[in-house]
């Protein structure tokens, strides 16, 4: 595999074009066309792979629907009620609002599959609440929102886990179940970190909500809190397929916002559709590019070659996971997560299989890793988003995010080395692995 081979040149072209600022989806399609041209193969194959790949990937339809569900929730007043509920629960502790931020993310995570949707939905509101009267610094509040949003796609539903299910041919249901404990673990280490530093940094306490108010606050948040129950109920009772469960969730979010909370009108529905359609297109283009380029990777037999190479070095499964983690963490500092998931992870999968690494465990480890990549500088989408939402300098945000990064990498290590943490729930529901 020399650099002057058609494959080497294609990879070079994709990297160069991406670095020059071309959308990565176009860069992958372009690079693949270059490969086909240099190999003297039919250049129509690029279109064929893209069209057939998109047309037969029924599971991917869950993605626009999960995005739509999150948009419907964000445009209604569900988030406000959810926050009031979280405040009644954990506001009374030192650093109460910071804890609220994490708890809200955990609950929102069970309704939405996207970290960026969580940050976009609650980011502005949390920022205002936390920085009002100088309670917290703007950079700490922004760093916390970025860090806690990461939980979104680890706890089901999860868009990245849907993508992983596509590239690995693993059951979405088991993958979703496998994400529950790691997601809660990450929430727990973040809350632990806040509790540990709350006194030293003199974080404020919120006025405690009287316990007799709790039933009312809970009742008001109930329709929102029911959403994960409905979603997971649909999934695990086998009543609907994962994609249909996503549609049900979107319908429920729409009905709850429109009928129960009466907080969205036709204009908001249209806006949610447009926003969701835009996100769908841009992630869809990346998927399209990856479908074409993965064909090239398969023709070149790269994954099997790598598997044979690593197997020959008698790598242990744990050694492989450790290497994979390092690789993904480093890549996550520079690459966009979806690209890693759709291009790098498939290359590693045959090695994982050859070494006897459980595909569900590997998927959750990879996704947690890629989510951490959203808050690792220099390239972290959540960091960029919070810089814009909270209007704080990137360098202050990065300084505040570092402790969170440290505890989350600790949690990642635990998830990596104790597969039972991940696999315990799926096995309980009948996963044989």
């Amino acid at each position, binding site marked *: 595999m020399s650099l002057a081979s058609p494959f080497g040149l294609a990879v070079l*072209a994709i990297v160069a*074009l*991406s*670095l*020059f*600022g*071309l*959308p*990565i*989806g*176009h860069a992958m*399609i*372009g690079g693949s*066309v270059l490969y086909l041209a240099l190999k003297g193969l*039919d*250049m*129509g*194959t690029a*279109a*064929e792979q893209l*069209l057939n790949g*998109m*047309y037969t990937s029924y599971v*991917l339809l869950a*993605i*626009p*629907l*999960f995005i739509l569900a999150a948009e419907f929730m964000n445009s209604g007043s569900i988030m406000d009620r959810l926050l009031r509920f979280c405040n009644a629960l954990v506001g009374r502790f030192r650093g109460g609002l910071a804890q609220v931020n994490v708890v809200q993310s955990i609950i929102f995570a069970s309704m939405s599959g*996207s*970290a*960026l949707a969580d940050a976009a939905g609650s980011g502005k509101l949390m920022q205002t609440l936390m920085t009002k009267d100088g309670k917290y610094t703007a950079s700490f509040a922004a760093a916390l929102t970025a860090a806690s949003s990461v939980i979104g796609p680890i706890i089901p539903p999860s*868009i990245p886990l849907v993508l992983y299910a596509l590239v690995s041919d693993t059951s979405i249901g088991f993958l979703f179940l496998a994400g529950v404990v790691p997601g809660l673990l990450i929430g727990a280490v973040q809350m632990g970190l806040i509790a540990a530093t709350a006194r030293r940094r003199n974080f404020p306490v919120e006025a405690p909500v009287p316990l007799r108010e709790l039933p009312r606050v809970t009742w008001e948040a109930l329709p929102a809190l029911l959403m994960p129950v409905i979603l997971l109920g649909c999934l695990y009772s086998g*009543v*609907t397929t994962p*994609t*249909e469960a996503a*549609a049900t969730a979107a319908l429920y979010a729409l009905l709850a916002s429109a009928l129960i909370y009466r907080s969205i009108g036709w204009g908001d529905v*249209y806006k949610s559709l*447009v926003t969701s*359609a*835009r996100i*769908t297109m*841009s*992630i*869809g*283009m*990346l*998927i399209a590019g990856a479908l074409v380029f993965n064909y090239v990777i398969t023709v070149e037999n790269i994954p099997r070659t790598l598997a044979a190479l690593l197997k020959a070095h008698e790598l242990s499964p744990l050694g492989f996971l450790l290497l994979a983690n390092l690789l993904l963490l480093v890549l996550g500092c520079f690459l*966009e997560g*979806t*690209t890693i998931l759709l291009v790098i992870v498939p290359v590693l999968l045959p090695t994982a299989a050859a070494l006897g690494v459980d595909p569900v465990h590997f998927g959750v480890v990879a996704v947690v890793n*890629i989510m951490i990549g*959203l808050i690792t500088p220099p*390239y972290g*989408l959540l960091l*960029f*988003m919070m*810089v*814009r*939402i909270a209007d704080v300098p990137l360098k202050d945000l990065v300084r505040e995010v570092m402790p969170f990064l440290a505890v989350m990498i600790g949690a990642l290590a635990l998830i990596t080395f104790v597969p039972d943490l991940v696999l315990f729930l799926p096995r309980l529901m009948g996963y044989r692995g």
Partner: protein
Amino acid sequence: MRAIAGWLRRRAENVAAAMLAVMFAAFIIQIVFRYFFNFPIGWTSELTVIMWLWLVLWGAAFVLKENEEIRFDLLSGAAGRRTRIAMGIVAGAAIVILYGISLPATYDYVTFMKVEKSSYLKIRMDWLFSIYLIFAIAVIARYLWLLAHFLRGKEPGEADPTRAGSGL
């Protein structure tokens, strides 16, 4: 000229929103028929997949701006204006050439698909897949237009990270 382009883009956005709405509605119909009337229907799942394919390619062709797509802008963002314009010219020219040279073979593939029809709705596959041709031509046209801007020393707008399109 700018006003017409803006109007067309907004109409393209209407179409995209409608496609997503159709996809959503088809799913609901499918669930209702299967679980409430115990009557599984196949055309809805076919319709949803068609909407997905068309939504992505239609959107990439007519709705999304470059800075809304998933890009790696760390390097180009840090570069100076002249370097960035030079990068844009190289990247734009590459994409025009690569989409351009594959266009004839793509046309052959899509028209060849006229021999097949979709399973439920019986739509000819060359029609369904024609969106790729529309997409490829739109991409070529868009990058030619961008190239013309770059060559005159102008650059398109900056990216807005709060509208980052990644679904992660």
